[in-house]
């Protein structure tokens, strides 16, 4: 009989090894799944992990990697701070939309003004928009003790309705012949979040994400605020004893994650997406939750997990179109990665022990 036994100390080797092992197990089990679907597993795995980077059309896919990883990392970093403190912002998707709407709103209001300060203003508006949207669950929780998971999640659907209303109403392109959707910001130079180096896929969002990773690392490891965040998450009673004010941290963590999600939305709408449209949001806010946990809430881990997740998205799309794999199989494959990571992660704190079956 196998039995789990708690380790006295978390194992460092297992903690470091877990993500690599999880990806390997995912490849094996996922490969089995693809084989059952009648595809060559090696080819599918190669298509997902290899082709986007080094395949024949890599010149097209490589920029996509940073375009997709940027917002994922940016949002996940914000979420991870809250998750560490036991504050569960599930509504990053909504904050992402509102950030995008605020950023685009500034650009469309000043159209066709040509000024250097327009883009910084949009950045500010995007961050403030996401922050304000996240303040709703934060204040309700602090003031009335509501559950931030439910409130933040429900606000996603409110934000989606608002997005649709904006795309069809106030923000609709007056020269768009009645089609829904705003002016395309890619064609509005002062507001365009353009690629910084041609063919790299890196725009200001990617730079911001990198800054966020560095700041989060310093915050968590070198600053009392980060220490308090970790303390509140691990031992709430000890945190209160140490003098941490849980309400203040709730407002701080939800605020930061909202602002970063808002920024991600703003960079997206002024860059790769370009316009306010009904189907602007594609689920970055939800996927970022997986990224945050895949990176085990560690800033550097999130950076790597964001890149890996973006890779499987792009590779998954290639596999879908080139090899006729159903979308559900790809989603399952991505889900497996988180599942196996959590399973392997257990080994950092527990060890397996073989015991003889006891007589009952």
């Amino acid at each position, binding site marked *: 009989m196998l039995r789990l*036994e708690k380790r*006295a*100390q*978390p194992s460092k080797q297992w903690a470091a090894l877990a993500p690599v092992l999880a990806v390997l197990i995912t490849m094996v089990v996922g490969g089995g799944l693809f084989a059952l679907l009648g595809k060559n597993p090696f080819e599918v795995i190669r298509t997902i992990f290899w082709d986007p980077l080094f395949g024949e059309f890599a010149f097209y896919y490589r920029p996509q990697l940073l375009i997709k990883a940027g917002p994922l990392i940016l949002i996940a970093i914000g979420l991870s701070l809250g998750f560490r403190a036991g504050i569960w912002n599930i509504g990053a998707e909504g904050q992402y939309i509102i950030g995008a709407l605020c950023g685009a709103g500034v650009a469309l209001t000043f159209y066709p003004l040509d000024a250097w300060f327009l883009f910084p203003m949009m950045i500010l508006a995007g961050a403030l928009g996401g922050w304000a949207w996240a303040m709703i669950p934060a204040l309700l929780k602090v003031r009335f003790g509501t559950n931030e998971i439910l409130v933040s999640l429900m606000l996603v659907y409110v934000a989606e309705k608002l997005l649709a209303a904006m795309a069809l109403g106030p923000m609709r392109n007056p020269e768009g012949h009645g089609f829904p959707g705003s002016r395309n910001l890619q064609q509005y130079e002062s507001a365009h979040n353009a690629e910084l180096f041609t063919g790299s896929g890196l725009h200001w969002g990617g730079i911001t994400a990198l800054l966020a990773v560095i700041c989060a690392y310093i915050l968590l490891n*070198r*600053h*009392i*605020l980060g*220490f308090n965040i*970790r*303390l509140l998450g*691990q*031992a709430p*009673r*000890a*945190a*209160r*004893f*140490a*003098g941490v*004010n849980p309400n203040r941290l709730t407002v701080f963590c939800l605020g930061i994650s909202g602002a970063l999600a808002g920024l991600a939305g703003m960079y997206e709408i002024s860059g790769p997406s370009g316009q306010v449209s009904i189907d602007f949001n594609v689920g970055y806010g939800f996927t970022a939750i997986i990224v945050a946990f895949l990176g085990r809430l560690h800033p550097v881990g999130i950076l790597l997990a964001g890149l890996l997740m973006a890779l499987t998205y792009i590779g998954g799309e290639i596999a879908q179109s080139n090899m006729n794999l159903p979308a559900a199989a790809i989603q399952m494959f991505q889900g497996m990665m988180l599942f196996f990571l959590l399973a392997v992660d257990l080994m950092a704190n527990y060890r397996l*022990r073989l015991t003889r079956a*006891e*007589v*009952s």
Partner: protein
Amino acid sequence: MAISNLTKTYPGVVANDSVSMELRAGEVHALLGENGAGKSTLVKMIYGLVKPDSGSMKFQGQSFTPANPHTARQAGVAMVFQHFSLFDAMSVAENIALGMENPPPMRDLSDQIKAVSETYGLPLQPDHIVGDLSAGERQRVEIIRCLLQDPKLLIMDEPTSVLTPQEVGVLFETLRKLTAQGVGILYISHKLDEIRELCQHATVLRRGQNVGSCVPSETSAREMAEMMVGSSFQTPERSRHALGDVVLKIDKLSAPSPNEFGTPLREISLELHAGEILGIGGVAGNGQDELLAALSGEMRTVADAVVFEGEVIGRLAPAARRKMGLLTAPEERLGHAAAPDMSLTENALLTGAERENLTSRGFLKWGAAQKFAQSVIESFDVRTPGTETAARALSGGNLQKFVIGREVLQRPKVLVVNQPTWGVDAAAAAAIRQALLDLATEGVAILCISQDLDELIEISDHFAALNEGRLSDIRETESLNMEQIGLMMGGAHGMEVAHVEA
């Protein structure tokens, strides 16, 4: 009951190493030992909760290998645990029925409970709801549950830790009646004076080995303690010194408990002088946690109910109080005084940040924090591989030394401790008490909340008791005897109980 060469190994520790002992019918046999000496493992093997790796047991002349508690109970072994397993919302009779192998119909059971409770002098009403009972009464429920099974061997794990002196007296009477009928009792306790009073034989365990036995009534408490520890240790010494000015004043402090099942504080008033140790006794759950929370700042109160060096601090946050010099060490080590999964360095930072200057402009000085943790470890003899060990990996006694040491080394003006030596072995407890006494000699005011009366008598200048959130009059400790203390602990409520039992 005879036990020979029982061995049980857990990963990394030999909990029991060829332990042999004998227990005769009709005797109270004490099992002594420090925390982690292997007492619990030994009784768990007798009760069928743990299987020995090797060795054998004989019970009433026959080989005895209980596979689980069920078979152990059928053979006539019963056990009263330190922590009660009762359902608050159910009546006494229902609780007893739940723990029996074949409960009789409720009405018969009630009659049996009444009969047993009268025979053994354990007053208990079968239809009372357990949630309303005192700790002593709850323990009676557990004992009666065992007695109804007609045991031949009764195991009791630290039975007096939650009782008032009067309740202890009642318990001892019951146990003596049981032994007169030929029941053997295995009695686990830390309290050597009790053992000397009650037990005919004692077996001492140290690091999983039987290091000897003795006749408690012919052995001094000190000799027994030294057998447990394996070396002699210093009895804490107190020095006579004059008390200083009032540093902490609590004035008619009333506050609801922050948690649902807590006890509200009711009009607590006290004055604490520099250099004074005020001991606060009382059975657990009478407002101890709440009093500590009100002083640490976890629970805010009316501003002028708590006055520190002339400043009203009732509404100040924990960090601000620490900065002023009011330090606290809560009872619950893991999860309250320390974060289990964090390293000792991080735990040093937990309360040391303000007074030890472990941050600058909010940025952490890890080097300084580690140095502080290291100095706590060294000055308080905390046994740990190093400062980066997780707090949960330390044994209870070592972590307690760390928690107390962390506050002591911050040079407090007032130190409030709750259960400073709870679950700590004799040597460590002596070291902690000595540290508190030394601190008082240096002029620090100490408020020591504890359920260990011997401890309070040993170190405190003044004594008061908490009962249902009320504080009794404060009396000079030397002027009190055990009976008076018991009455103070019981409050008016306690007199009533004593009256019924008389």
